[in-house]
């Protein structure tokens, strides 16, 4: 039989716990938005920092003298051969590429925009590599408006050129595949080089690490992954992240 002391404690507990419940609810209503805002700001600051690192890596990686001089030489060759239309197109593309590179300050862009930038880059590379280079881009219609971190695909494509195509002679095949599987976007960048892993210098690894960190910051509660794998016929990098439409992301931010 329960003694009076225990019974009193039981009653006190029964009477007081609803108060605790009500206070918890009140606390949630008052502070939830602020906590969300603080978390969002913290994530945004970290994302911006990572974006700066990515931008720095990009500049370091790409506006290297050999890329720039090779491109200029290719353009010069077009001028000497009097291929005016191709010359104009090349200069225009180079200008757009540089503009995109220096103007991108958002933490997220749409896959469509990212691919536009990749296309500029590939067009320039095409003037350099000519018939050696063949590339295919497959974009699932469902994901064209989906969000992506800037320079994700671009970094992977540049890695392919830097560590594979520019080091080896022969055909340069590049395939970019972007599809939606369940609620995730799967990005695959494949090239036909078999020696990427052996020759991969540290800055390639830094690029992938930066992508991993930025994806984790953008989607803290969801599964994301970036993986480099050697395949029988080449080397592929897989990036997986949640499918979020650009307008939904903006809407979500405005309601917070």
């Amino acid at each position, binding site marked *: 039989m329960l003694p009076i002391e225990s019974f009193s404690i039981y009653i006190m*507990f029964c009477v007081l716990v*609803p108060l605790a419940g009500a206070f918890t*609810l009140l606390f*949630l209503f008052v502070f939830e*938005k602020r906590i969300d805002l603080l978390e969002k700001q913290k994530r945004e600051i970290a994302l911006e920092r990572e974006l700066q690192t990515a931008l720095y890596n990009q500049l370091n990686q790409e506006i290297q003298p050999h890329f720039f001089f090779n491109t200029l030489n290719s353009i010069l060759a077009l001028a000497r051969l009097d291929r005016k239309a191709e010359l104009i197109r090349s200069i225009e593309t180079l200008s757009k590429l540089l503009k995109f590179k220096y103007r991108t300050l958002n933490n997220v862009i749409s896959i469509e925009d990212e691919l536009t930038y990749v296309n500029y880059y590939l067009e320039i590379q095409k003037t350099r590599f000519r018939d050696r280079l063949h590339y295919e881009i497959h974009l699932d219609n469902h994901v064209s408006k989906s969000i992506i971190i800037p320079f994700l695909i671009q970094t992977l494509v540049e890695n392919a050129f830097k560590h594979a195509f520019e080091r080896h002679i022969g055909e340069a095949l590049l395939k970019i595949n972007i599809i939606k599987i369940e609620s995730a976007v799967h990005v695959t960048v494949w090239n036909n080089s078999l020696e990427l892993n052996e020759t991969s210098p540290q800055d390639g690894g830094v690029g992938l690490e930066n992508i991993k960190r930025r994806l984790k910051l953008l989607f803290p509660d969801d599964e994301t992954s970036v993986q480099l794998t050697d395949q029988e016929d080449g080397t592929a990098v897989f990036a997986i992240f949640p499918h979020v439409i650009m307008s939904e992301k903006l809407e979500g931010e405005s309601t917070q």
Partner: protein
Amino acid sequence: MKKTDFQYYIGGAFQLGIGFGVVSLLSRWVTGNTILSSPETLIKYGLTGGIGYSLMGALALILFGILAKKIRDRFHDQQTIGDVLRERLTPRGYWFMITILLVISFHSIFVQAMGAGILLHMIFPLPVFSGMVFFLLFCFFIGGAGGMQRIHQLSGINVVLIFSAVIIIPVYFYIQEGVYPVYEGIKLYHPYILYVKNTEAVLFIFTAILIGFGQVIIDRASWQRVFIIKKEKLRITFTLAGLIWATIPLALSSLIMIIIFGRSYDSIYSLLFELIGKINSTLLIVLFVLFCFSAISSAVSAELHAIVTLIIKNIVGMLRPLSNKEKWRFTYLFSGAICLSLFIIVSILPPSPIELLFFFGNIYASVIVPMLYIILGSKTLPSLIPLASIIGTAGGFAALPIMENLFAIWISFCLSGLICLGHFIYNLLRMKLIVKV
């Protein structure tokens, strides 16, 4: 999204955060059953039973919260439990499960309406049907015709009323009476309540957790909320809702002791409503009546909204494509028909409570493993899986003459679990054989 869009009726306009999510879940789960079953557990299993009942609700919601994240990850484009069943089951299995859902839904909403009938009968010296007209009309406008947005608009008021009542009324009485007289009175009239070394209560607590989890895992309204609460906040919302919900039956059990400490009782189920006779202050009477009314009406509204959504999206919508206008017309039609049938049944039947706690317990227990298999499995499942819950229920009912109610519930759970396990192993072996060949 336009207000006239049927999607707006199903899910409201925006995704809920933790605060609104908890309020929405509380207004769904603080129901007539909570009010009517708390006395039953206290009287049958003593103070341990009272704590066990609270634990049951908390654990059920917490466990479902863990599943909710997985549900949202896997079925992100869906809106109702019916949508998920359609994706995971064969057509025949789907219709089996929808039938089970409908039976449970109608039973659940009927029990709530009966609770409202008893309350009205005890409070107002008027025939039950006049009060029921008002009550059901209110539920029709909020849950039936108003949709999720309207339910959420009122859920805040409901939760404020519920907490005001469960905080103020016990404090008022215990200050007025003191704990000692209550203890002495219970020791004299109901000493069994104070007996805590009650081994039967342990079995009751575990069985109650099983039934509670079964209730939540198949609850249409909770599934709808899984799809409208922000994904990253699902688990914490369900956990907090469970913990906060658990405080309410505890407060109600302290109220029950106020009522019974100096006397005996006729019916367990109407005990809490007898509190009205004990309250002297008009303000507290109004608060208590509003508490009962808002608890029952919010549960009925949520249930009504969920049934109508299920009927239109997952039954009529499956039989033939519906335009937006037709969906709205059917919404008014079905919710009106359900309210009318509830009104007729409650008016005809005498306002006497029915066995609540373990009635339908067999169904809830036997539906757990099939639902887990549906949520976590990877392939389209055959109709055997929904059938397993029917076989489990039948097995449990068949075992009733030879064993206790609580054991029969475990029989139901194990039977359906074994069938699902058998199917899982059979599938695994078959896959291995195919790979070898």
